[in-house]
């Protein structure tokens, strides 16, 4: 075993925090079995054999976006052939379907639309909350929150206050990409900076809302910039404790302006495992099966992951970039996949209350 890894293993077993050098060494090693063992140990110390999933539905109300990030295959400029904006009826129809399927969450993110006013988003939340009070509304990335404050001429605090009043329950973790300005300049020059993303999240947490944190990897970033990204997340989490889960997102190159192969299985597993080991103040590490495929998502349950997201139903963003996985997994498929991995499936709500727990598999 490499000496650096031995030190890391001792730290992990003792429950000591890893340094940025440690995280880098983990990203660089190909001793994947050791990384897996350590991440599995750290995960099970926190979460035992439980693996969470959620019955949810994604709604992407518009793909029209004033930002045109290089890595994004989803966004369109207004007037382009495939540009769309859902009417309130279309949004409600999706919510209705979700409600019938006993979803506990609507996950709503979209492009930065040039014309829709802030009031449209407030109205959407209010309408959904009134019609479907049983579903938690997890909506709007930090990028959208910043955009709302600009189009409405309001402070972040005011925007968040009004959204919360209208029914916002929590925020997803998108738009983080990689915080490093050099990387951001290359892949999403028009998007808010990493500093601003973190500032928005700090305001979100101060407003009493929880959120997630993501990291888009596998494009032009360096391993150092991944570690820098995670360091800044860990620092903010130390201050606010408001992040629920860390979700590494595998870059999908198809239909984007970045020429690159798909991420490899090792790259995916390392991102998840290093997340588990380095982000010691995050309770949940989520492997999004849409991104890495259901097979690798199942394997990742042995590499530090304790959450495989949800039933999803309709996913547009990753599929626009050529994701091969389906758009939906049934509860029974998710439960089977978790049990076959030897873990205990737990259906959760957005804030990790247990909705239903399945008994441990008896051979």
């Amino acid at each position, binding site marked *: 075993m490499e000496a650096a890894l031995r030190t890391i293993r001792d730290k992990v077993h003792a429950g000591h925090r890893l340094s940025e050098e440690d995280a880098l060494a983990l990203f660089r090693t190909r001793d994947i*079995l050791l990384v897996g063992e350590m991440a599995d140990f750290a995960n099970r110390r926190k979460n035992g054999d439980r693996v969470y999933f959620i019955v949810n539905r994604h709604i992407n109300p518009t793909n029209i976006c004033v930002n045109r990030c290089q890595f994004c295959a989803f966004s369109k400029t207004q007037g382009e052939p495939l540009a769309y904006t859902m009417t309130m009826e279309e949004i409600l129809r999706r919510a209705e379907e979700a409600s019938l399927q006993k979803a506990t969450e609507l996950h709503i993110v979209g492009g930065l639309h040039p014309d829709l006013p802030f009031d449209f988003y407030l109205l959407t939340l209010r309408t959904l909350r009134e019609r479907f009070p049983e579903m938690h509304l997890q909506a709007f990335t930090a990028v959208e929150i910043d955009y709302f404050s600009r189009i409405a001429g309001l402070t972040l605090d005011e925007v968040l206050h009004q959204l919360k009043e209208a029914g916002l329950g929590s925020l997803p973790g998108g738009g983080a990409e990689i915080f490093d300005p050099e990387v951001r300049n290359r892949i999403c020059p028009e998007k808010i900076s990493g500093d601003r993303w973190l500032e928005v999240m700090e305001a979100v947490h101060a407003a009493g809302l929880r959120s997630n944190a993501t990291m888009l990897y596998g494009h032009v970033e360096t391993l150092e910039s991944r570690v820098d990204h995670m360091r800044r997340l860990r620092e903010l989490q130390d201050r606010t404790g408001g992040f629920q889960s860390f979700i590494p997102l595998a870059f999908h190159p198809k239909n984007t302006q970045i020429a690159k192969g798909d991420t490899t299985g090792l790259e995916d597993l390392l991102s998840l495992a290093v997340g588990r080991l380095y982000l010691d103040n995050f309770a949940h590490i989520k492997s999004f099966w849409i991104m890495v495929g259901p097979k690798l998502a199942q394997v990742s*349950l042995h590499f530090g992951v304790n959450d495989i997201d949800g039933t999803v139903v309709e996913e547009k963003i990753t599929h626009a970039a050529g994701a091969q996985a389906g758009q939906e997994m049934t509860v029974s498929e998710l439960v089977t996949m978790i049990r076959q991995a*030897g873990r205990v499936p737990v259906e959760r709500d957005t804030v990790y209350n247990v909705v239903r727990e399945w008994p441990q598999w008896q051979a």
Partner: protein
Amino acid sequence: MEGSAAPGTGSRGSTGGRWEEILRRADSERPTVEDAALLLREAPLFALGRAADRVRRSLHPDGAVAYIVDRNINYTNICVCGCSFCAFFRDPSAPDAYVLSGEALSKKIEETLSLGGTQVLLQGGLHPDWGIEEAERLVRAVKRYPIRLHGFSPPEVWHFANRSGLTIREVIVRLVAAGLDSIPGGGAEILDDEVRAKISPRKIGWEQWAAVMREAHRQGLRTSATMMFGSVEAPESIARHLLRVRDLQDRTGGFASFIPWTFQPGNTALSGDPGFGESALAGFGHAVGYLRVLAVSRLLIPNIRTVQVSWVTMGAKVAQLGLFFGANDFGSTMIEENVVASAGVAFRMSEEEIVATIRDAGFQPLKREGPPCST
């Protein structure tokens, strides 16, 4: 670690650390079927990975991972076997039943050569009208081209012998004379007749499969051996399969590689069987189960040098991880694959992707031109 012994959890249940003892001794002595099954059920995933990786490293200290550019050609989908796990076969009267024409065959081979391919993997259904002459004609048609021919799994060889009233020996002699280079290990499924009675009652039994392989090896042909798991078999049947292949190899030394893969349930009669759901849940036909079986295969068959990943059924990502669970071969580019695809699974990998995937895992890609060689 919680109490009950879930498959694949590695929970230290009722048997304590028995798996540890079995793993420790697996290097030096042949485990029993029961012990091997216990490994499959109870050893933690990473303990299996480590033990398998040790065997892989001692056999291939150079860190080479080989692959081949070849093409799967399925000369017919008409098959009298009608196995319940198969989504590929057709009745002769089915609208999409086919026998490949000579022109189509030539075109496929020419494409393969133009892509730098060096081998054709030729397999087909057990066509009711096909005997040795049809098979010989097909072999000669392929061998008009400068390309290796890896063809006819044991059930096909047996079928030709039956149809033409020949012995297995005579069939193989004639196929080799026509140009056959090596024999694929398909049709093995699970080498346990209790399982075969359930999923492939009309296919040859395990001893006949072994007899064809022994004869091929006796005539100096190299073959592979395969295993399709994750249908209805118990871990004991997987263990029996692995140990039977090991014993055969002890006698002949003719197996160049071992290739396990998982049953693909889409569009099969078996997946509609109400009994299947329960056995699937308890079985190994999923990604984590695949890695466990791959590792145990490497451990239990130390006398076959090469263990191959199945990216066709598992995808590139899990296949790459398989290189840390005992495998040292990435298989083939396929170019075309029909059997697994009939079950609705369509993973694809180009030569470039295979090479990049091997490199990314820290291994040395090595292009081979036939079965993995013995040196």
